[in-house]
């Protein structure tokens, strides 16, 4: 059974442990600016929203890549960036309607959530279970998938 990151903004306290864990996992240091997951703060509502790639089926990033640098990890369902093949053209960053693949000015490559190979550091670090890694089926997490279909310019029929 493939699993997905399931985010419950209601449970998020804005502690940013997920950003720290993500940065440490991928960059080897604690630099939230390089985290693949971001927590957005809504001051007036007093709410926090963790946000990252949903590994959507449409995979705009993957189909837009001109050098086949983004591939599917069949085990986890993650869309993976191969740094050796990414030339840094940034076409994926404007193609992804969720804004979850971003250009890293330090490396000259793009970066996105890779589900840490099936053991996501953000979910492990989250003290309130606002971020969990659970079975993809049967969750209420389809909110973003629904949003995906609204945005879908490629239409529902997938090859």
């Amino acid at each position, binding site marked *: 059974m493939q699993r997905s990151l399931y985010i419950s903004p209601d449970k998020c306290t804005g502690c940013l442990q997920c950003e720290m864990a993500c940065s440490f996992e991928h960059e080897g240091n604690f630099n939230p600016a390089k985290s693949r997951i971001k927590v*957005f703060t809504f001051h007036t509502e007093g709410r926090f929203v963790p946000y990252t790639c949903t590994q959507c089926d449409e995979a705009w990033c993957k189909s837009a890549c001109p050098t086949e640098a983004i591939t599917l990890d069949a085990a986890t369902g993650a869309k993976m960036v191969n740094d050796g093949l990414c030339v840094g053209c*940034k076409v994926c960053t404007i193609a992804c309607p969720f804004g979850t693949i971003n250009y890293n000015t330090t490396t000259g490559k793009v970066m996105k959530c890779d589900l840490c190979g099936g053991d996501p550091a953000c979910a492990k670090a989250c003290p309130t279970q606002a971020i969990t890694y659970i079975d993809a089926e049967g969750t209420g997490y389809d909110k973003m998938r629904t949003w995906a279909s609204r945005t879908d310019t490629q239409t529902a029929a997938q090859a």
Partner: protein
Amino acid sequence: MQYVVIGAGPAGVTAAETIRKQDPSGEVILIGDEPEPAYSRMAIPYYLADKIPEQGTYLRHDPKHLDSLGVRQLKQRVTRVDSAARQLQLAGGGALGFDRLLLATGSDPVKPPIDGLDQPGVHHCWTLEDARNIVKYAQPGSHVVLMGAGFIGCIIMEALAERGVDLTVVEMGDRMVPRMMDQESGNLIKQWCIDKGVTVHTSTRVTGVKANASGAARITLSCDPVGTLEADLVVVAAGVKPAVDYLRDSGIELAQGVVVNEYMESSVPGIYAAGDTCEGIDWGSDGQHAVHAIQPVAAETGRIAALNMCGEVTPYPGSMAMNVLDTLGLVSVSYGQWMGVPGGDEVHRLDSDEYRYIKLQFNGDRLIGAITLGRTEHVGVLRGLIQSRTRLGKWKQHLMEDPTRIMEAYLGATQLTQG
């Protein structure tokens, strides 16, 4: 069923793969007129900058990929399409029949009507072969004149600068990238380039190019109003146009490109077009048609055309202009109707010292276009907001007050129920 795809770029290769997936037993033939494996022009600037080898530009890295899918590949130029006889004429003399045809021949570089552009030392930057020639002459310290500061001119500027050349840019428009950037952002990019040591002449026209008999440089350019410029290498980047000359007597309706309907089908049933070649529905324009010669559209339309060619009826809602450009480290993005619409609202914020700029265009409480400069985080949500036609509600007012809060507005309008 015999499927023929003309053009081995992103649109053609995506289409050939999709056809194979849909119809495992059909004959699929992919025709390309360049000698190399299918590659991506988008990657050429990185080859020019010595960041990748030639192989790094290839669209698919397994050399047997297309063979293993049973896609027959022909290195040929198609000279004519006979729509009635369902046949292609090949430059080599042969003919090839088809049941379904995809025109994915991309664009050709525009050659401006200036005398002297045919001589040695003057090159387009469009094919891998062009790139090899530029690499040969763009040596450290050599004088290079880049004609045109449009998208392609700007994207190769960094590559040329990284090769250590002495670079001069001549652009007819009054700013850099005039078709993608407004006055503020286009001028900011110009200032950025000047600060990086590039000489930039906007509102300037090259009037003549001749071999230089006396001086050290190979070529002399006459410019109005700048006067004379000397160059060892001239790179012509004056825009591109759909490569459709071979279709003139085909009976297929042409405007700028091949006019297609929402199924990517041309005026001749069974003949489709995709990528730079097609003039399809301009998303969000009430049914107008446009050519959007950009990578994501090439891949999307290639796939949609292929599905329809195989009988999997799949309408395409249209393509939207979107571009991302890195000009010597300054990243700019534009989407959709960044020039705005009558009766719409506009907001922008400029920080010229930091080279940061954002402009948003609204129609009612929907985002319809945007420009950003100096921003690399979450730019894709601008596409999401535009193409989902999300009603921003109260977030529109927040954005009118501070357009940089785009990510909050996106999440507020799409994820928080109490937006």
